[in-house]
């Protein structure tokens, strides 16, 4: 039986894993390679490494971190942040990533999705979408896409953009609720469900994980294929092995033992 995936996300800044609340107030959480191996040993089904302050100066740091993390990691490994063109993606694959995540660059140039998928396969292309609920609540565009690490609104509808990204050749959607990111108040199940029902590719829910119940809800009500969390895993609030036990007890199929 296909299981629901639990993905540990490492937000990286200057070669270190960090975690903030609503994309701000960063705290140090360790070395990427050590964090990734520890999470995988503890039952993480997949590791995502995001360079959250990606700049060209940081590019070498990112590639070094990818290389050292990939060396002893034998579960799927996704890398995102600062990938603007095909050559950037190629360098990240060459350093050992299995998939790349693109966000701002895909919004700017949707053809980039197909370009990378054409060379490395759709399974290697994750389109990351940062979405926020509109405060005015007007119109049917209820979730707006933001780019540049959540700093720039695009005026685009998240569900529509997910559909377009899938049509362009994306293999998965990594969907982050900016409203819930780092708050540990639960995933935005409504957002996740709308996107999951709009596309046939897997949807990874992100933003808001705080308790096992949140994961159960996003798999059942949100129809997520995978759920991603960062802070609760790094700071030991939630243990992945324990989380999987609770999911299994609740009737959610998970990979265990690993």
């Amino acid at each position, binding site marked *: *039986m*296909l*299981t*629901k*995936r639990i993905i540990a996300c490492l937000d990286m800044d200057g070669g270190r894993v960090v975690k903030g609340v609503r994309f701000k107030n960063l705290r140090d959480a360790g070395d990427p390679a050590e964090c990734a191996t520890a999470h*995988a040993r503890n039952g993480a*089904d997949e590791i995502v490494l995001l360079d959250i302050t990606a700049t060209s100066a940081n590019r070498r740091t990112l590639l070094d971190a990818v290389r050292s993390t*990939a*060396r*002893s990691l*034998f*579960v*799927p490994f996704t890398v995102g942040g600062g990938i603007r063109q095909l050559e950037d993606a190629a360098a990240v*694959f*060459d350093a*050992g990533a*299995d998939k790349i995540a693109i966000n701002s660059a895909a919004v700017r140039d949707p053809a980039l999705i197909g370009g990378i998928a054409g060379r*490395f*396969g*759709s*399974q*290697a292309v994750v389109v990351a979408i940062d979405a926020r609920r509109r405060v005015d609540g007007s119109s049917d565009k209820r979730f707006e896409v933001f780019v540049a690490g959540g700093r720039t609104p695009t005026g685009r509808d998240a569900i529509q953009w997910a559909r377009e990204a899938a049509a362009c050749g994306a*293999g*998965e959607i990594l969907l982050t609720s900016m409203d819930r990111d780092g708050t540990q108040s639960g995933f935005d199940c409504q957002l996740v469900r709308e996107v999951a029902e709009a596309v*046939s*590719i*897997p949807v990874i829910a992100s933003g808001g994980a705080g308790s096992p119940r949140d994961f159960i809800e996003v798999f059942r009500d949100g129809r997520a*294929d*995978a759920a991603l969390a960062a802070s609760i895993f790094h700071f030991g609030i939630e243990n992945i092995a324990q989380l999987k036990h609770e999911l299994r007890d609740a009737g959610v199929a998970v*990979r265990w033992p*690993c």
Partner: protein
Amino acid sequence: MIAIVDYGAGNLNSVKKAFDYLGAEVVVTDQPETVATAEKIVFPGVGHFSSLQALNRTGLREALLQAAGASKPLLGICLGMQWLFEGSEECAEVAGAGIFPGRCRQFPSSVKSPHVGWNSLRVQQGSQLLRGIAQDSFVYYTHSFHAPVVAGMAAASEYGLQFAGAVERGNIFGVQFHPEKSGEVGLSILKNFCEV
């Protein structure tokens, strides 16, 4: 020496890295001559079935078929396993090796496609490749087309229907999943291949 066949599609780093980790002597090659002299051959595939057209152009198809015929252990991974069959619905014009009967097909519309994630294996008895692998072990899949259930099936998985997760006949092995991304279970399978 194990030759990992590079026909110009996708990223073979992860496969090489896993064999390196196991201490195996591996070389990534696009040369038919290197394939011919290798003791064992790994053929990882990724992407669209049409990309296998490149095998015909480069002489790699002949090299792979000769190695298979000469009883050299050959492991097809993902699209590389699909190639061991007669062909695929994904691209009717490109022929597979025809070592296993039947064609690869799309998943039924009752399930989302592609099939991505960790799924369990129903292991058949007597497989060399899956020796010591526990029943219902989890492996990582990512694919849109699946190989049919055949006589040489070494393990089955379920996703909307039952399909071949692994096949085996004599020196020929195929896995639809990615052993290089399947944690300890996957590494054990690759180790078994090294020891065949």
